[in-house]
């Protein structure tokens, strides 16, 4: 079981991710709707893992990831991307993300990525 911070600007996706993670036995310790809120929540909550959307207002997922890794080089991040964002995904993996899922994703794929990242 992992303590997870869910970061996505879409309330709907935060709900989908939270429902899937809780159903998979994980605890969602917090949610954030943009990069700055995510960085603040990460430092407050010290989660085991972050699910991070790429396309967000103000500070996107890639910029957030880079700052997050600066704060905590051991941060475990799973990127949530849309089809067509392969370049961003590769950049995120290079920047330190552990894995990624492409929306719309199967619940099992998300849980598999989370379990692999925290193993």
């Amino acid at each position, binding site marked *: 079981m992992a303590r997870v911070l869910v970061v996505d600007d879409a309330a709907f996706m935060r709900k989908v991710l939270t429902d899937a993670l809780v159903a998979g036995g994980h605890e969602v310790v917090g949610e954030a709707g943009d990069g700055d809120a995510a960085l603040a929540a990460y430092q407050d909550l010290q989660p085991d893992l972050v699910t991070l959307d790429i*396309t967000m207002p103000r500070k996107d997922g890639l910029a957030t990831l880079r700052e997050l890794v600066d704060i905590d080089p051991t941060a475990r991040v799973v990127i949530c991307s849309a089809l067509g964002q392969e370049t961003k995904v590769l950049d995120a993996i290079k920047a330190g993300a552990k894995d990624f899922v492409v929306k719309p994703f199967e619940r099992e794929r998300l849980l598999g990525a989370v379990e692999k990242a925290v193993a």
Partner: protein
Amino acid sequence: MSPADVATTADALMRLGASTAEAVAKSLDAICPEPVERGDVTVVPGEDSPFDGFPFEDGPAVAVSVHYVDGVTGGNVLLITARGARAIAAAMGESPAPEDDAQPTDLELSAVAEAANQMFAAAASATGVVLSQGVEIAPPDTRLLESADAAREAFDATPHAVSATFRACGEPCRLVQLVPNAFVVRMTRALDEQGSEQLSGGAGLSALGIADRVEPGEERRLDDALRDIRVRVWAELGRTRVSLGEAPELPPGAVLELDRKADDPVDLYVNGLRFASGRLVLTDEGEWALRLEEVAGRTAPAAGPDNEGALI
């Protein structure tokens, strides 16, 4: 503007409109329980509004707009009835479509915005392929609009617009692409570069639209210059998609289902551009060959002993 310029602009807009519309339709296909009905893709004349004619009679429609943030300027608006928006939201949550006519909730609007985000990311990727560079999108903006006039006021007018109609989750849906001049220039330049790389003969020039964009004398010179260039030609059985993570993990013996039935025609590509389709046949030497049935939109007459189509 010369007739040749007009043809080039119209061609670029249609290519942009068609590729974006198909990417959006495929994304909707993955979301909606029923296949999405494709309608027309239309270049909207400058004096007209691309939002005119949308059925606002039954109440406010949901408009989700996404603009590009890197690579190009411009944007897309997805317009759908409130009922259609709620049906898409329900499909995103794998729930049955609601039967009442209530207005969408904030969570439902967020689901539609997320659907649009996925659609337009795929569409931006398709556009990036044409432009040979990455195209990034901003987060979607969602609003309810009461009328075509309200839609016209909500979004900055651009010199060009392309409209594509669909029927998704049983409801009318319209994709409006708002296209600045700079985008058209980039698009025409990219298409011209692709055309000069991919064509090898007069038939190709005409079939792929280049002949319509150059003067007759220029066409001959271009034709002569390109005739001897050797190009890669390949046949494609079908396609599927797997994630970047899944691909290296596929074991020997895995079966990937493609998007074609066994008796569907096979597509022929010339340097990446679909050019013809036909049927796989075996030659007397036991090698695969393709008997062409349609070449650049021209269909072969019924096959017979004296006319069996070209064999490649």
